[in-house]
C-alpha cells in the first residue's frame, strides 16, 4: 500500500487530525495523507502549546523556574521538578538530606502511578471504552488527595526545592500511602479482568503498532515505549540517581513491540512503583528535609550539567549551563514525549486509521510536554 504511494497519489486525500480532535488529548495536529482508511503519510505538526519554557528558564532566577517545571508534563509534574532540582544541586554543589531524597522518590513514584493510571484510562477512551477511565480516575483521585495533602496542589505540584523539599511528610501521609498501596494492589485484578483479558481489547492491541527496537533507537524513544520493544533501558537502573540504588525493583520488559507490550509494561510498572513506595516508606529515615544554608539567591559556579531522570514517559533530561550569575546561561529540556512522538510518522505508514490511533494512544503523549 504505502510503497506505491506515488502511483495512487491521485486517490489520496488529506485529513487534518487535530489540533482539536478527541484522539490527540491536546493540541497536537497530524496531517494525514490517506488512501481510503490507510495512512500513506502522517506528518505531526507541533507547537500549538509552545510557551518558551527554555527561554523562561534563562531569564529568571533559578528558583523562579520551579513553578514552570510543573507545567511541562503536567500529568507527571514531579519528575520535571526532580530533574531540575537535581541538575541545579549538582551545579551548585548542594547535598540533599536523606529524608528529602526518600520523600522525593515516594512522591515521584506515586506520581508515576497516577500518570500510568491516567494513561490507562485515556488509552481505553482512544479505543472507545469509557468505563475504565472512570475506574482509573477513582484510584488516581486517591493519589492526588495524598499528594495534595503534602504539596498543596493536585496537578502542578511545585514541591521540590534546591536542597530538599518544601514540606515534610507526616504520619497521616505515610499511613495513607500504605493504605493506598494495599488498595491499588487489590484493584489490579480488576484491571486485569476488565481490560487486559478482554477479547476486543486484545484484538485491538496484539500485533498492532509494531515498533522495532531499532526504530526506537533511531528516534530516541525511551520509557515504556522502548521497554515495550524489548530494550531494558531505564534511567533508574542505567544511571542511578537519588536513592534508587538502595531499592529493589524490576524493570518490566516485553519483547512483542506492539501496543499490548507497551500496555503490559505500564501496568507492571504500576506494581513495581508500589513496591518501591513500600520499601521507601519502610526505610524512611528521620531528619531534616531541607539542606542547611541554601542561599536565597542561588548563584552556581560556572559550569555545565546534564541530568537525566526517568519520568513516567521516558527519560527526561535537563541541561543547564551556568555562567555564575543568578540566571542560567542556557537551559535545555529533553522531553520524552517529543522523541516518542517523532517515530509516529514512520511507524504509522501503511496502517489503518483506527490502528494508528491505537498506536498514538499507546505512546502516551502529553502535548504541552512536547511543545514546552
Amino acid at each position: 500500500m504505502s510503497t506505491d504511494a506515488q502511483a495512487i497519489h491521485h486517490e489520496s486525500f488529506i485529513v487534518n487530525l487535530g489540533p482539536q480532535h478527541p484522539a490527540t488529548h491536546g493540541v497536537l495536529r497530524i496531517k494525514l495523507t490517506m488512501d481510503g482508511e490507510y495512512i500513506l503519510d502522517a506528518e505531526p505538526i507541533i507547537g500549538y502549546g509552545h510557551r518558551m519554557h527554555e527561554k523562561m528558564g534563562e531569564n529568571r532566577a533559578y528558583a523562579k523556574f520551579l513553578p514552570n517545571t510543573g507545567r511541562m508534563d503536567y500529568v507527571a509534574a514531579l519528575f520535571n521538578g526532580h530533574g531540575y532540582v537535581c541538575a541545579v544541586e549538582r551545579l551548585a554543589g548542594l547535598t540533599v538530606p536523606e529524608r528529602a531524597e526518600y520523600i522525593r522518590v515516594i512522591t515521584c513514584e506515586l506520581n508515576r502511578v497516577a500518570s500510568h493510571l491516567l494513561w490507562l484510562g485515556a488509552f481505553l477512551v482512544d479505543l472507545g471504552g469509557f468505563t475504565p477511565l472512570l475506574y482509573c480516575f477513582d484510584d488516581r483521585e486517591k493519589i492526588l488527595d495524598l499528594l495534595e495533602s503534602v504539596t498543596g496542589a493536585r496537578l502542578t505540584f511545585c514541591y521540590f526545592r534546591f536542597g530538599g523539599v518544601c514540606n515534610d511528610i507526616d504520619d497521616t501521609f505515610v499511613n495513607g500511602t500504605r493504605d493506598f498501596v494495599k488498595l491499588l494492589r487489590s484493584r489490579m485484578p480488576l484491571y486485569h479482568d476488565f481490560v487486559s483479558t478482554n477479547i476486543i481489547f486484545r484484538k485491538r492491541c496484539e500485533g498492532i503498532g509494531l515498533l522495532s527496537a531499532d526504530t526506537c533507537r533511531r528516534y530516541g524513544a525511551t520509557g515504556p515505549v522502548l521497554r515495550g520493544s524489548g530494550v531494558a533501558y531505564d534511567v533508574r537502573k542505567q544511571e542511578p540517581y537519588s536513592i534508587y540504588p538502595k531499592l529493589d525493583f524490576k524493570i518490566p520488559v516485553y519483547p512483542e513491540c506492539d501496543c499490548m507490550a507497551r500496555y503490559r509494561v505500564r501496568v507492571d510498572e504500576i506494581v513495581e512503583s508500589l513496591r518501591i513506595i513500600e520499601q521507601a516508606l519502610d526505610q524512611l529515615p528521620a531528619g531534616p528535609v531541607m539542606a542547611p544554608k541554601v542561599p536565597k539567591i542561588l548563584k552556581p559556579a560556572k559550569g555545565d550539567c546534564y541530568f537525566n531522570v526517568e519520568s513516567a514517559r521516558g527519560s527526561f533530561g535537563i541541561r543547564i549551563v551556568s555562567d555564575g550569575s543568578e540566571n542560567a546561561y542556557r537551559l535545555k529540556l529533553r522531553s520524552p514525549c517529543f522523541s516518542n512522538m517523532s517515530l509516529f510518522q514512520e511507524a504509522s505508514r501503511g496502517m489503518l486509521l483506527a490502528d494508528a490511533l491505537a498506536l498514538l494512544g499507546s505512546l502516551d503523549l502529553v502535548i504541552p510536554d512536547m511543545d514546552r
Partner: protein
Amino acid sequence: MYSLGDIVRLLLYLVGLIGFGAFNAAYLSLLERKQSAWMQLRRGPTEVGPWGLIQPVADGLKLLSKQILLPRDVNVPLFLLAPIMVVVPAIVSLVTIPFSETLVAHRYNLGLLMIFSFGAINIFALLIAGWASANKYASIGAVRVVAQNIAYEVPMLLVVIALVMVTSSFDLVEIVKQQGGGCWHWNLLKLGANPMMPASFLIFFICMLAETNRAPFDMVEAESELIAGAFTEYSGMGFGLFFIAEYVNILIGCSLATILFLGGWDCPFGLFPGPHWFLIKMYALCFTVVWVRWSFPRTQFYGLLNLSWKILIPLALVNLLLTAVMLKLVP
C-alpha cells in the same frame, strides 16, 4: 375497504406510536446516561427535576433552540433530507410491532419482512448524510456504515429465515401466538425445532447491535477516530433526529428480539400474559444494549467484518441447515 372507525383508530395509533417513539428516545437517552453513570460509580443527571427525570426535556429544548448550520460545501437538499430519511422508517416500523394480541396498529401478514425492508433505508440515509456533509470524517463514517450493515444484514436475515422456517409465518402476531404458554414454548428454548436456538438468539442480538450502530460496533460515529462520523456536520435538531432514530431503532431491534425469541407478551410462567410482559422483556433487552456499550472498547473495523464473515455467517448457515434437517426429520 376501510371504515371511518378503522381510519380514526389507525390515526390514533399513529399519534400514539410517534409519541411512544419520541418518549422512548428521550428516556432511553436518560437511561443511557443514568446507567452509564451507575456503572462508572457516578450519579448521572440529577439537577433537572427529581433524579434528573426532566433532563431529556431540557436536552430536547436545547437541541430545538440551536441553529441548524449549513456548512459551505454541503449538498443542501440531501443534507436536510438525511435526518428525515433516518427517522421516518424508524417510526413506520413501529406500526407492525404487536404489543399484545390486540394492541397492534396494523396487523400485517408480512410484518417481519416490512420491518427489515424499512430498516434497510437507515443505511441509505446514513450514507447520504455522510456524503452530503462534504466532510472527510463524515465520508469515512458513511463508507464504514455501508460495509458494516451489509456484513451484518446477512447473518441477521439468515437467522430470521431459519426462524421463519420453524414458525412458517411472517406475521408477528402469529409468531408470538405460537410461543404462548410459558417460557418453555418460546423460540429461544424450542430446542426440539433446532438445538441452536440460543446461539441464534445471540447472533440476532449481536447483529442487532451492529445494525443499530451501537457500541462496540459504533463505526459510524467512532468518536475517538472520526469525531462524530457521519453526523459531524449536523447541529441542532438535525443531529437530534439521528439521535432519536438511533434509540427508536434500538427499540425496534429489542421489540423484534422479544417477539421472535422471547415470546412477545407471553408470561414466562404461563400466567397473566399481556403487554406489560412485552414491555418488561423489551426494556430488559434495551438495558442490556446500554450495558454492553459501556462495558467494552470499540472493535476494530476489520475485526468487526471478520466477526461477521468468519463467525456469525458460518454459524448462521449451519443453523439454517440444521433447522431444515430437523424440520424434515421431526415432523
